[in-house]
């Protein structure tokens, strides 16, 4: 346990610089988006009122009240989320390969640590997961900050103040925010539970490749396909038969069980590969 925590800490430390850059980009980009969009709205307001002689009521009727929902249509708002997600997905591969590639032989050290090798796997997965959650938390904080910027830039009579949950529930333009911050706790568990499982499957596939090299690529892809088929089997069956046999709650429980099976098997297979098959 102790060694696992040390390894998590170590893995986080190795990526912290890039991680802070990601966070920095997100903060800068979204704040700029907020200011720009609010500014444009106010420009439009001034134009309509002073040049075209509209009343405030007419303006609101024509252009709608301003809220955070306007901001999320901006690419500057969406881009950092997609960018950070893409970076973390790529890093999920790189977190393993960086120990092997080039002149780097750090994998020698990792594999020779006097600790169960599965801790390396769990630590890498935990590091990815913590970094994802960290960015999500940052996004929640940012939404609050952005909401306050709007209050400061747009007068109250032109504005609707949305709570975070209201905002997410209504956010459609930028798909990303709705995906990364679900509105209910159950949904949150589902999103990140599935996400975590995918990371485990990916890591297992990588270990197949690291163990059997060329042939391992096929094994890895094969394993991933089987894992997904098993996990989504209830949906696939229903789709093929065109009928649903299960109540939603039954389906949910079945999926939870399948999640446990797929995740458990991935960890078990990885443990085997790390101990018996993996090679430097």
């Amino acid at each position, binding site marked *: 346990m102790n*060694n696992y925590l040390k390894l998590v800490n*170590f893995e986080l430390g190795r990526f912290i610089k890039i991680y802070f850059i990601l966070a920095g980009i997100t903060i800068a980009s979204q704040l700029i988006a907020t200011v720009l969009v609010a500014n444009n709205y106010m420009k439009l307001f001034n134009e309509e009122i002073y040049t075209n002689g509209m009343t405030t009521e007419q303006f609101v009727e024509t252009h709608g009240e301003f809220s955070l929902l306007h901001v999320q249509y901006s690419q500057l708002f969406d881009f950092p989320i997609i960018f950070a997600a893409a970076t973390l997905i790529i890093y999920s591969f790189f977190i393993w390969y960086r120990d092997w590639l080039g002149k780097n*032989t750090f994998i*020698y050290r990792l*594999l*020779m*640590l*006097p*600790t169960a090798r599965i801790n390396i796997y769990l630590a890498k997965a935990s590091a990815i997961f913590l970094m994802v959650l960290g960015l999500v938390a940052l996004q929640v904080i940012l939404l609050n900050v952005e909401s306050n910027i709007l209050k400061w830039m747009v007068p109250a009579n032109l504005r609707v103040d949305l709570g975070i949950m209201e905002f997410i529930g209504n956010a459609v333009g930028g798909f990303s925010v709705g995906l990364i911050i679900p509105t209910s706790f159950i949904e949150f568990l589902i999103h990140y539970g599935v996400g975590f499982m995918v990371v485990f499957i990916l890591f297992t596939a990588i270990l197949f490749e690291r163990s059997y090299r060329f042939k391992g690529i096929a094994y890895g892809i094969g394993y991933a396909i089987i894992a997904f088929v098993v996990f989504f089997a209830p949906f696939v069956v229903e789709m093929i038969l065109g009928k649903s046999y299960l109540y939603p709650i039954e389906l949910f429980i079945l999926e939870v069980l399948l999640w446990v099976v797929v995740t458990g098997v991935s960890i078990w297979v990885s443990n085997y590969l790390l101990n018996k098959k993996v090679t430097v």
Partner: protein
Amino acid sequence: MIEVKNVTKKFGRKKVLQGVSFTANKGEITCLIGVNGVGKTTILNGIVNLTPMSSGEILIDGEKLTKETYEKVAFIPDAITMLPHMRIEEAMQFMQDFYNSWNNERAEELLQFFKLKKEDRISSLSKGNVAKANLLLGLALDVDYLLMDEPFSGIDIFSREQIADVFTSHLVEDRGVIITTHEINDIEHIIDKVVLLDDGIVFKEFETEEMREVEGKSVVDVMREVYRG
């Protein structure tokens, strides 16, 4: 004692090791000799389970390797096993964090012995100093067995002498050492035992002093016979 028993290893269709057996005793320096590509590194990797063997058995003090074995056997590969951007002191801290057998006093002593500076980054070191830092990280572990892969290759003569000095000092004394080399000259006088490898098998295994005493042959003489004969 480290026992390697009838070990084979295939990489794809290529048989690198075809039934290798030998033993290495505690308190002795055993040298695996063979031309490049003969599987010396593979054997060391096999002993510490960095590469699984295709068949055969490897025992360390009569037992198979477990995670606790890494507190008892240290492997020093021919390249440093730390991240290049780390400072030497950070690498030392990493070792201390994970190994109970890490001996910080010994590490400090080795820093002086090799004239290395703690605050230097590994990526900024010369080849010879990287080799020394690498050696430091392995030697500072209070382990019974040390495996070293080509500790002399690719570094300058002075670093070579300094590293050879390690073998005759208390830093190595009483431990079991296995080193691989394709260049015997530097160390002919300091090794106890030679295992000559060729074509994936052990050609000959002998004690150096006994060979000199009984047959009047140097290690190089024996190598000449084996490889040319």
